[in-house]
């Protein structure tokens, strides 16, 4: 499975018509200790790059944008009680939500891991 990244530091991994979304390790590191993740409502429809969720850390509050268009099918409820999961594994157990009905053609607007690593060097 391959992760794709946005310029706003979200990642997405598509399996069939479903996609898992989170924030990148880099973003989690930059934000510092995550204190709260405002999860989207299940059933919410978003367009690519719309606001999807929000995340708060001891340093800042930021929006999380949808890397792909779709409908929220599942959210990572564990983050309600343990937002630090994002710091422990932003690209693994710290996932934010799953979108359904995604169109993988939209991935062309995103970066693969190598391109994202290159992009981070330029920041």
């Amino acid at each position, binding site marked *: 499975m391959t992760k794709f990244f946005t310029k706003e530091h979200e990642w997405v991994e598509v399996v069939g018509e479903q996609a898992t979304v989170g924030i990148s390790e880099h973003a989690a590191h930059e934000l510092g200790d995550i*204190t*709260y993740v*405002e999860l989207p*409502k299940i059933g919410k429809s978003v367009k690519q790059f719309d606001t999807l969720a*929000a995340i*708060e850390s001891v340093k*800042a*509050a930021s*929006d999380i944008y949808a890397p792909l268009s779709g409908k929220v099918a599942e959210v990572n409820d564990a983050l309600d009680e343990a937002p630090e999961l994002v710091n422990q594994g932003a690209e693994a157990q710290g996932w934010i939500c799953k979108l359904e009905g995604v169109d993988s053609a939209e991935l062309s607007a995103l970066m693969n891991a190598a391109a994202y690593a290159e992009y981070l060097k330029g920041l």
Partner: protein
Amino acid sequence: MGYCPNTPDDIRQMLEVIGASSVEELFAPIPAGLRAKSFDLPPGMSELELMRLMREKAASSGADITPFIGGGIYDHFIPAAVDHLASRAEFYTAYTPYQPECSQGTLQALYEYQSTICRLTGMEASNASLYDGGTAVAEAALMSLRITGRHKVLLDASVNPLHREIVNEYLHGLSAQAVEVAPQGCASDLKRLMDSIDDQTAAVIVQTPNCFGSVQDFRELANKAHEHDALLIVSCYPIALGLVASPGEMGADIAVGDGQSLGNHLSFGGPYFGFIATRKRFIRNLPGRIVGETIDHQGRRGYVLTLQAREQHIKRHKATSNICSNQSLCALRGLIFCAALGQKGFGELAALNYDKAQYAKTVLTSIKGVELLNSGATFNEFTLILPRDAAEVVQQLLDKGVAAGLPLGGYYPGMERALVVTVTEKRTKEEIDRLAVLLEEVLWS
């Protein structure tokens, strides 16, 4: 000495930029009747002359009117400790408690205030106060929109009419809607309220005691709202909570109210404070400041502003609300008032209010042609129906030194004969008897 810092030349230049030919023309859009009649003030007075004038005014007949008016703001006794402690310079000088390292006293007082409000309302989380009762109701409505993502609230029309106006004003700009549900007699029309809740309803807003003085239980309404994932917002009168079920006990999701009755002087309309408290799970949607308890690096207890990521200075236009201040000093007075009374004293105060109002009810309704409108329980306020226009009667009684109550005609067309009478612990038996004698006199002689 002129009090206007602008020179004639400044004024001319400013008018030129605006394109008005004179100050008169600038103010022309304001209807003549609403404009100041004159700015010809008398010459200044010496301090001695001024003291004499103020003493004369304080002793004039208008100053010792006995008030039986409530309607949201109440004439309660304020222990001397409240004025004394709240006037201490330590509290006056600590304005905005951003920095815990130099504001522990203020922060601790606000933390204790929040704990007190939670105990009173039966809720789990309170903010550090809002501006007043009306804006607190409106903030609760906005909070329900944020939590549910819906755009409609049901507003019981027996909620204070001034507060309803503020709710409507706040929702107006947000393409959200407040649907008013008319009361039945003096009480909320619970059946209609429950039937009106649907899956688009963010919250139901009710008040107890309501603006007719009726005390109601909203447990069933809370359940019905929750069935539709809507919230129940209960506006309450804090002194009554010494006697009646709290919003928390009734299953409310947000409790709000005006805190004036807790140790704040009437002061011709303000400043007062509003309170708002909610369930723990909604704490991130609370507007305004919240003080939290923590420990420092040496393990000592300390207080800080907490959950600030909700607020404007961090979240900018996406903040939970544009409230970025509170009413610290008024809230502090509320806290000192509650602490001075204690739980037992608070209960006794509520009982005194209830008992005196019950006595007044009996005496006043024994007057020919005066009827009680409330069919159920009341606290320290009740609505009388007079044989003629209540506003006229109130005016006649004012001339005799008594403010008999709040006429409802201005707020509820068709209720011109209705008068809301309030009896706090400060009213003596003699004052209540005098009101009865004067009312009978005005009505029948």
